[in-house]
């Protein structure tokens, strides 16, 4: 179980290898990679966070996933600072003996992260900076795990 907040990029293969190295009991690894979308008027993205609370929130997300699924290992890496369109923002990895547990745990961790980890995005475009609005759809996505 590893969580990291960093300005630099990450490498999915290296992160996956770090999870699986030296063991042969993992059957499935699901990764989610979030990327900065460009679109016409976004030239840069700035990621702000709440140091200290962020790490606690990410650890809490992992421990909720571990309680719920057969999760052998997981990784959450979130970048902060300035990012360009096309760059990687976030990586979630979930390793399990079985594929559906890996899919569900990764999906859950992303839904949780979206609404519970203290990160804020500001887009810069020709008209200046604009803080990204939270989406109701993200709250709804989280609610489905309560069922």
């Amino acid at each position, binding site marked *: 179980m590893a969580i990291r907040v960093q300005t630099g990029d990450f490498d999915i293969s290296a992160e996956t290898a770090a999870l699986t190295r030296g063991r042969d009991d993992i059957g499935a690894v699901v990764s989610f990679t979030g990327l900065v979308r460009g679109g016409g008027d976004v030239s840069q993205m700035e990621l702000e966070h709440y140091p200290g609370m962020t790490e606690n929130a990410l650890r809490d997300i992992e421990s909720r996933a571990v309680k719920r699924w057969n999760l052998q290992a997981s990784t959450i890496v*979130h970048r902060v600072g300035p990012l360009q369109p096309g760059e990687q923002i976030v990586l979630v990895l979930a390793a399990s003996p079985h594929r559906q547990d890996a899919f569900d745990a990764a999906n859950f961790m992303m839904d949780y992260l979206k609404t519970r980890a203290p990160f804020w*995005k500001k887009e810069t475009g020709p008209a200046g900076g604009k803080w990204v609005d939270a989406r109701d759809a993200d709250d709804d996505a989280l609610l489905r795990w309560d069922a």
Partner: protein
Amino acid sequence: MQVLYFAWIRERIGLPKEQVETTAGTVAELVEELKVREERYAVAFADLASVRVAVDQQMVDLDASIIGASEVAFFPPMTGG
């Protein structure tokens, strides 16, 4: 107590954190104290439906106690991921 501001709340108030001496018992009372101090606080806290609060790094509601807390943070809904 340390009070922290993030994202557009930080920008409206004009600083990332400050030491605040208060006798407020709840988050809501602290917000009311700040709002009457200066216009920039009133602007930042004009729409409380868009404001989230953490006391000692745990998300809480506006009516939560801040007695004994060392850190209160105000920020908009999260948009990471």
